[in-house]
């Protein structure tokens, strides 16, 4: 975003790439995904399916969620294979 509102580019154009990262969709979340790493097989299906690229992978392992961007849609929990079901959607701790 521009420094002041006056500087906003004409017509709502965003003048650079990769700005989705700066937009914290985490604020939309009602339910939060919680992974049980004892069950998880690191198949990466949740990583592929997450619409917000909020599944964090390190050294070939699924290690959790980027909660600044996870909007709590629950797609990862549905897509985690039936035999595994390692993700549960829980109420956000208040």
């Amino acid at each position: 975003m521009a420094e002041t509102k006056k500087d906003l580019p004409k017509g709502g154009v965003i003048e650079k790439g990769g700005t989705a990262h700066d937009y914290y969709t985490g604020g939309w979340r009602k339910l939060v995904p919680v992974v049980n790493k004892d069950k998880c097989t690191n198949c990466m299906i949740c990583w592929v399916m997450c619409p917000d690229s909020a599944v964090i992978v390190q050294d070939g392992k699924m290690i959790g969620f980027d909660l600044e961007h996870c909007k709590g849609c629950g797609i990862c929990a549905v897509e985690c294979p039936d035999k595994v079901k390692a993700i549960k959607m829980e109420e956000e701790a208040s």
Partner: protein
Amino acid sequence: MATNTAMKKQTGLTGNSAIAIAMKQINPDVCPAYPITPSTAIIEDFSSYVADGDVDTELITVESEHSAMSACIGAAAAGARVMTATSSQGLALMWEMLYIASGMRLPIVITNVNRALSAPINIHCDHSDSMGARDAGWVQLYSETVQEAYDNLIMAVRIAENEKVLLPVMVCLDGFITSHAIENITLLDKAEVQSFIGEYKPERSLLDIDHPSTFGAMTLQDAYMTFKHQQSEAMTRAKDVVSSVSAEFAKKFGRNYGLIDAYRLEDAEIAIVILNSAAGTTKVVVDELRKQGKKAGMLRLRLFRPLPHKEIADALKNCKAVAVLDRADSMNDFGGPLFNEVRSALYDGETRPKVISRIYGLGGRDYKIKDATDVFDELSAAVKTGKTDTLTKYITL
């Protein structure tokens, strides 16, 4: 008005053919098209220019006008100079996209050949189509004659692409009356048109992968209103840009157009305000009344968006009674759209004339000398008695 330059090379052309020739001379990068009566011949002629290789334009045949305007928006966002033409239901089907084109500040130019909106279905002239789009954020130019429509389209490119404006422009002319009648007009050379419009250098392009950008992103409470404010200010600036582009056109080519066409108004007591081709008939009646010693005049708006409200107020300030003739009804029990805006423009004047609304010519109904004469008679009576008959009324019924 006409100088020697302006009179050179007279050619008999219909409004549609003249618009198609203007498009050929402009040579836009992209023309998404879905032809509709009475503007069909514009795209018909233009598609032969494309087929014959007279232009470099990418003609995109689409499945609806909604898609035509969507393709205009995509192409304009990619940095192309974009044009199309439509009428009536076609413009109505573009509705959603008209607002997106203006909100995204894309300098698209379209010709709208004015035709009544259904129902009942009708293919003939009235202004309900472009009047319905009056708040869509497009600059609107209205054309009395074939010559003016041709000239307006060429000027529209410069107005739309001006960096102070960057708004889409709609050039309107009357369906059948102007689009299909042959008039003697003077064409410019292609080189003259090209040098007048210049090269289009878009500020940004979706295709510029070195500077990736997002067009049409979501904005919420923190930003949406700011963008609308910017758009509103651009529309305000458009008025001076229309003036300066028209002045440059007059200087180069000898045909002079103002924001408004004030006809014998200097000392007029009664006046008709009107748009497009019906101005011709009205001027004949003004001349006739002047011969009888009656102080009649006419005001035609060439520019309707943005509204040249100061110029309107100034032109009508000495009148005692004014009739605003609308070829569209707002269906509000309070007169047509032109009436409401002209009357409002007069509110702050020192001397407010009586102003009445008369709806005429819907669905191509003729507006004849007698109709204009009757309105002027009504105005004369209003001046005498200080009273008007009814505020709003249908005439030519």
